[in-house]
């Protein structure tokens, strides 16, 4: 413990002569880096680079890999490096990206080389920029490169296996979505197969899969995909659009009663609570996401289950990891806070801690705002669907086919469903579904034909 304090005192003493000596910034960076004080070493790194000091790329990679991106986003000091090419171009690019300066961000991310540990993130961000410019082919190329290089990326405490997998899967999802928008549904499904069912992000692909199945005319598979959300483990990933798609497929297969029931469920379980998503404060959301057990109030439960789907998200665990790391560095520096230089460091670290927390709170708030708009959008879609069901019903009454209102299940032979390796009928009524994950198909026949 005292050895560490001595080291810090040493570096602070060194820092006092820093203004006149360029190489001392590099030396100080090395000292702080050796003590695993990455946030503090980041402060020296900027100074060293600004004064044309030479720092090894490997060390820079470790520092940039260990720092929460919110620090880059809110670090106005990075603006000094906008027009010059440096080894921290990735950090500068991240800030420009979030300032919507896509032109500079593109230039900065393009300069990140394959041996740089931020290569996959850079490619993902470049892909997103090109998507905003509607250049889907170029975007697809960057996303594919991100997938290819994900396995080569070095794992660290901060950027763990889960973090890298998340980025890889996000890139897979974007490639699949590009194929989907080009109406290449089979390719989209094939690409999504690269995501393993054991990945926590897999449930988020279910809706994407369902829409691809739907457009390729495989309603049984589409319905099976969205039905998977009914598994208790996956309920937290359920989004309103999945419910709507279920109802739409039932409607198109002439199971009107089922479609109406889904709409009723949506009204009772989601639409009713929509305003809580809109009005919940950031602190309340922070509290809810950190709860281990479900709260008692219904409206809290509504938000709790939605946020629970993000508990294994990289944004949550990188927020936790970064907060604890910064706190640790603050504690160490607080021991020598009597020194003027230490106070400057501490102020920067407190600032970083604050922006990381603010960004995460904003993320939660925006997440629930987005949830609110999704609910509204789904409600509008349900209103139109409801109208169509009424029209169909009216026609059936006119044609004396009122028996069609009752949804007597009409099953089909499982062999008629393509690409089902393991087929079985699951009894949802009396069945028990613990933790099986799968890609289900519903063996329902289209009643409109009869």
């Amino acid at each position: 413990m005292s050895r560490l304090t001595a080291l810090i005192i040493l570096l602070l003493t060194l820092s006092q002569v820093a203004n006149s000596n360029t190489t001392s910034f590099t030396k100080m960076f090395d000292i702080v880096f050796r003590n695993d004080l990455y946030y503090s070493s980041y402060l020296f790194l900027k100074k060293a680079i600004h004064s044309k000091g030479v720092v090894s790329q490997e060390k820079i990679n470790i520092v940039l890999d260990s720092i929460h991106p919110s620090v880059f986003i809110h670090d106005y000091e990075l603006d000094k490096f906008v027009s010059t090419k440096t080894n921290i171009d990735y950090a500068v690019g991240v800030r420009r990206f979030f300032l919507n300066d896509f032109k500079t961000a593109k230039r900065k991310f393009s300069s990140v080389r394959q041996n740089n540990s931020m290569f996959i993130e850079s490619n993902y961000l470049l892909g997103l920029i090109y998507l905003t410019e509607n250049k889907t082919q170029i975007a697809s190329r960057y996303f594919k490169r991100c997938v290819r290089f994900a396995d080569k990326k070095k794992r660290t405490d901060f950027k763990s296996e889960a973090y890298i997998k998340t980025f890889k899967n996000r890139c897979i999802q974007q490639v699949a979505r590009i194929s989907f928008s080009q109406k290449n549904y089979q390719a989209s499904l094939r690409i999504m197969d690269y995501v393993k069912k054991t990945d926590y992000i897999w449930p988020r692909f279910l809706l994407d899969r369902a829409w691809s199945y739907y457009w390729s005319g495989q309603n049984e598979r589409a319905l099976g995909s969205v039905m998977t959300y009914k598994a208790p483990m996956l309920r937290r990933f359920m989004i309103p659009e999945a419910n709507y798609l279920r109802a739409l497929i039932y409607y198109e297969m002439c199971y009107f009663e089922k479609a109406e029931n889904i709409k009723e469920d949506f009204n009772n379980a989601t639409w009713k609570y929509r305003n809580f998503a809109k009005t919940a404060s950031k602190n309340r959301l922070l509290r809810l996401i950190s709860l281990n057990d479900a709260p008692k109030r219904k409206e809290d439960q509504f938000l709790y289950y939605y946020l629970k789907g993000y508990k294994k998200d990289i944004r949550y665990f990188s927020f936790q990891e970064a907060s604890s790391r910064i706190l640790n560095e603050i504690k160490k520096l607080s021991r020598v806070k009597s020194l003027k230089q230490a106070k400057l460091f501490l102020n920067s670290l407190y600032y970083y801690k604050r922006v990381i927390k603010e960004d995460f709170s904003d993320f939660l708030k925006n997440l629930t705002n987005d949830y609110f708009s999704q609910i509204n959008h789904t409600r509008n879609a349900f209103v139109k669907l409801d109208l169509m069901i009424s029209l169909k019903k009216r026609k059936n009454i006119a044609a004396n086919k009122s028996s069609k209102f009752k949804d007597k299940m009409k099953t089909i032979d499982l062999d008629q469903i393509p690409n089902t390796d393991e087929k079985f009928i699951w009894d949802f009524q009396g069945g028990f579904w613990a933790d099986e994950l799968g890609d289900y198909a519903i063996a329902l026949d289209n009643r409109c034909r009869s």
Partner: protein
Amino acid sequence: MKILRLLLFLFTLSLPSFAQEKKVIIKYQKRQKIDLGALLIDGEVVTPGDFTIDNEKEKASELLYKRKNYNNRLRINIEYVF
């Protein structure tokens, strides 16, 4: 001599104006009979069908929301990268 030539020239010019006064009588065919039954038409005879209802169905179906792309999710992907 010159006067004689001039008179001859004027006489020649006046000749067509006499000719124009002649009446041209156009004779039309009094009655034309078209036998529709004997007409032959190349091509397939089709009936229009109830296209109005189909359009109505199509239009109504277009009202329903069906995801065609993920453009509306792009902004959220950008904002929530980290």
